[in-house]
């Protein structure tokens, strides 16, 4: 990679970070969402509140956590609460402006599967399960999703609806009595997608520099809908890239510092 270049993963994470503001209270999933949230915090959204489901509120980690319960999250948090309180007062209580999720499988309406590939009773691959996601998806005021595109991951129909997005589209959420907005943004390594105002189908509204509509379609398992006007996502700035790379470097150094003992797990 040349000095001014960047990877598709960096573009995805930086694009995701831009969707966040200092006014947001963000319930952060691990992985790409966590990186995006912390880049936002270290660049344009210094006052963003990051909450991890381990109970840490207002955390400001110097390195990215490997798990949602790393000590770093607690050490830098404003306050750390119990798990029931986290899910009752903070998530169900309507305090979260953005639930930021990843997905193993995703459909065009933002329904997420992290439970099984195949049949629930006889799965080809047993995934970890929903964890906090089912209620993050329904109780956060809106949901952002970030994932790398692939035809395996972005499918016509998810094998299992772990976390409900817009269901079959349209007003399906309202019909189920869900009052929150649901998936409002999808950021992939190729594009930025927003739900169509009526059908709620994810629609490409911006493509990352150099990406073509054919690229987006080739790595997506459903027939992609493109907006009438599609912008080009601004490339990562020097500051964004440096921030992300420094964060990754600090993370790597910190975790390498955890010396192996070798004898047992």
């Amino acid at each position: 990679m040349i000095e001014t270049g960047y990877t598709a993963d960096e573009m995805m994470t930086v694009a995701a970070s831009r969707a966040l503001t200092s006014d947001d209270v963000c319930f952060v999933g691990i992985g790409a969402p966590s990186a995006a949230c912390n880049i936002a915090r270290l660049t344009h959204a210094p006052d963003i509140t990051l909450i991890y489901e381990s109970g840490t509120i207002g955390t400001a980690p110097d390195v990215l956590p490997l798990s949602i319960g790393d000590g770093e999250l607690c050490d830098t948090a404003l306050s750390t609460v119990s798990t029931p309180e986290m899910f009752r007062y903070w998530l169900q209580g309507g305090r979260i402006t953005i639930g930021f999720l990843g997905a193993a499988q995703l459909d065009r309406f933002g329904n997420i599967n992290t439970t099984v590939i195949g049949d629930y009773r006889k799965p080809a691959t047993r995934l970890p399960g929903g964890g906090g996601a089912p209620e993050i998806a329904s109780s956060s005021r809106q949901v952002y999703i970030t994932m790398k595109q692939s035809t395996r991951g972005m499918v016509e129909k998810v094998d299992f609806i772990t976390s409900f997005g817009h269901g079959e589209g349209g007003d399906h959420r309202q019909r189920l009595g869900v009052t929150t907005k649901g998936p409002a943004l999808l950021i992939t390594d190729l594009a930025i997608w927003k739900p169509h105002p009526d059908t709620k189908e994810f629609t490409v509204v911006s493509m990352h520099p150099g990406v073509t509509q054919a690229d987006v379609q080739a790595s997506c398992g459903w027939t992609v809908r493109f907006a009438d006007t599609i912008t080009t996502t601004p490339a990562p700035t020097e500051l964004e890239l440096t921030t992300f790379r420094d964060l990754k470097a600090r993370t790597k150094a910190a975790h390498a510092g955890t010396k192996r003992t070798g004898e047992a797990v």
Partner: protein
Amino acid sequence: MAAFRPLGEAVRANLNNGDVVAFEGFTHLIPHAAAHEAIRQRFTDLTLVRMTPDIIYDQMIGMGMARKLIFSYAGNPGVGLLRRFRDSVENGWPHSVELEEHSHAAMANAYEAGAAGLPCAIFRGYLGAELAKVNKNIKGITCPFTGEELAAVPALRPDVTFIHAQKADRKGNVLIEGITGIQKEAVLAAKRAVVTVEEKVGELDTHPNACVLPHWTLDAVCVVPGGAHPSYASGYYARDNAAYLDWDRIAADRDGFLAWMKTNVLGSSPKAFAGRVADLRGKA
């Protein structure tokens, strides 16, 4: 009433074949030493309860000790999937385990209801989520004031809960600090409770509103330094991330798994944990 006891004795006195048992912890303070003792004592037919089954439940499932798993997220934290759990679900090795699967919100509320002596918990959850279709312990309940349909799940009331905590005072009152997770609720919801701690101290000497379990809520307290390894104990030692990565490799293969268990668990003892964290101290 809590008595300080050796871990082997506490596990023997409080766990039985067929029990509903929770070894709880949320990334922080996972009770590895207690779980390994239960494995050494070869309990069977257990219903394992935990929000976040990780390595220790992967080990118990792989050793054929589990009849049923009540859970919300089964993963190797920061690494990926649980290979022994997958082998059981996908291939029935060593045998199939009944799954009662929930969301974190449901499990947290269910433990809370158990601690609160209620038969069930109500919450706004599972809206549109398919778990409600495959788990008969997820029901609806109607608010008598607004008519809103809420989710209901039965309270969790384990026969016994094991947790790891930072310290106990001389009476056996226990302090948990940092990411406290669901441990207080898991202890108070259970019929019996056993806590392993890093150390015994004269006084807890903490904040008035800290998370403390009075000695009379516990059946046994066991001093096992390093007892959470490879997870961490805030203020004592850091997480052994390499061990989690190793587990992915160890658990990938049935024979390798069994060999590793024989050497590191069946042939080991609670005393081994102190050595495992020696290099991780001062990094917590």
